[in-house]
């Protein structure tokens, strides 16, 4: 796939990987619905569904190995994220947080899985969608819990602040709740995946290019590949961490909307 795009790379000139490398042509046909990231996202839905249905289908008191694997991930989201952050009302948010975590995690991990090697979340569209979902979820929860008027009022006029400070705080709070939160949520995820993939491209394509160069450059090439491998492990960490952070922040926003006072 990359070779199609990077046809100029063979001619002895190194084209540094750029945002263009993320724009993959359709696998077949000529429309935006047949690109690799689109297929990956659907594939992730199938993989996650099959794995968790298989592991929970015969969920028993004494778990099988498969059940234990699925249950570990589920109970991590349920107990360490939802319960610890949201508190006693956590159970009804578990399905959303669980979906969020597994969906982001698998689509991130596609970035280092051999032969797939493309993190779907490096396409900003998916990250926007997820942030938008979280945005609607936590505002909906807040409005339902406290009533629309009270909820908006508490965001705009934070209780316990001197009146004069509202001139400064009110615009900031509005900005935070309605723009900064969804934006940072999506951009953090997108940028991490984008940058991580770019970094891997630089070292691995760079190593490949060096290997075709003069003898001195050939010697440096293994170093570039080595760094590429180390960075792959680093990416694994970042991919897991980003899935965790996105879910954790969503849980925090929900917890904030549920709390009576911000």
């Amino acid at each position, binding site marked *: 796939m990359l070779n199609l795009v990077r046809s100029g790379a063979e001619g002895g000139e190194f084209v540094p990987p750029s945002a263009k490398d993320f724009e993959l042509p359709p696998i077949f046909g000529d429309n935006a*619905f047949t690109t690799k990231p689109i297929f990956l*996202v659907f594939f992730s839905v199938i993989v*996650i569904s099959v794995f968790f249905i298989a592991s*929970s289908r015969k969920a028993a008191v004494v778990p099988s190995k498969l059940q234990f694997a699925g*249950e570990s991930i*589920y109970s991590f989201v349920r107990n360490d994220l939802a319960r610890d952050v949201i508190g006693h009302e956590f159970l009804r948010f578990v399905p*959303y947080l669980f979906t969020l975590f597994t969906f982001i995690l698998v689509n991130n991990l596609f970035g280092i899985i051999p032969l797939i090697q493309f993190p779907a979340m490096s396409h900003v*569209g*998916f990250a926007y969608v997820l942030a938008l979902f979280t945005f609607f979820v936590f505002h909906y929860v807040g409005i339902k819990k406290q009533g629309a008027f009270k909820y908006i009022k508490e965001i705009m006029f934070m209780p316990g602040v001197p009146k004069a400070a509202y001139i400064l705080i009110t615009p900031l709070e509005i900005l935070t709740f309605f723009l900064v939160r969804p934006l940072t949520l999506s951009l953090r995820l997108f940028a991490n995946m984008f940058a991580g993939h770019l970094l891997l491209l630089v070292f691995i394509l760079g190593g490949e*290019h060096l290997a075709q160069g003069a003898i001195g450059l050939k010697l440096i090439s293994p170093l570039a590949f080595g760094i590429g491998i180390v960075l792959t492990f680093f990416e694994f960490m970042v991919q897991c961490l980003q899935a965790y952070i996105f879910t954790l922040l969503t849980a925090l926003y929900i917890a904030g909307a549920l709390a009576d006072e911000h």
Partner: protein
Amino acid sequence: MSTFNFAAEAEKVNPLIPHTAELIVGAVAFSLLFLVLRAKVVPMFEKAFTARTEAIQGGMERAEKAQLEAQRALTQYNEQLAKARDEAQTLREEARVQGSSIVEELRAKAQEEAARITAAAHASIEAERQQAITSLRTEVGALAVELASKIVGESLDDQARQSRIVDRFLDDLEKSK
């Protein structure tokens, strides 16, 4: 020596502008996954969690009950054992008393019997002896007179004299004994 191709930079793509297709697919795929996980996975895991909690609690309760039961059975057994021991003790005591009384009775009976037999024997011996003495006295008298008359040669016809002589002789004999 390779040079960087900056011409490629010319066709810039803004990575912050999303593709409409990806927005749609992202929303659909995520919703789909959410529905599947909420319907099929979360309830099953929650059921397992609840069952596990119940199993642990139930198990603990059952264990506690079993322990109480065991404790009660133990005290019951101990009581029964003590009672049985007491009973055995009483029985033994009774048996001992009864046994010794039986022995005593038997001994008394045996002694009595022995005494009776001894007395009977004594009586019969005495009677026999008396009889022997009587018969001997007459027989020995007759024999002695006959012998004496033969030796002396004189007739001692007189019955009375004879008898007197014999008696005197026997009396002397008895005295010298």
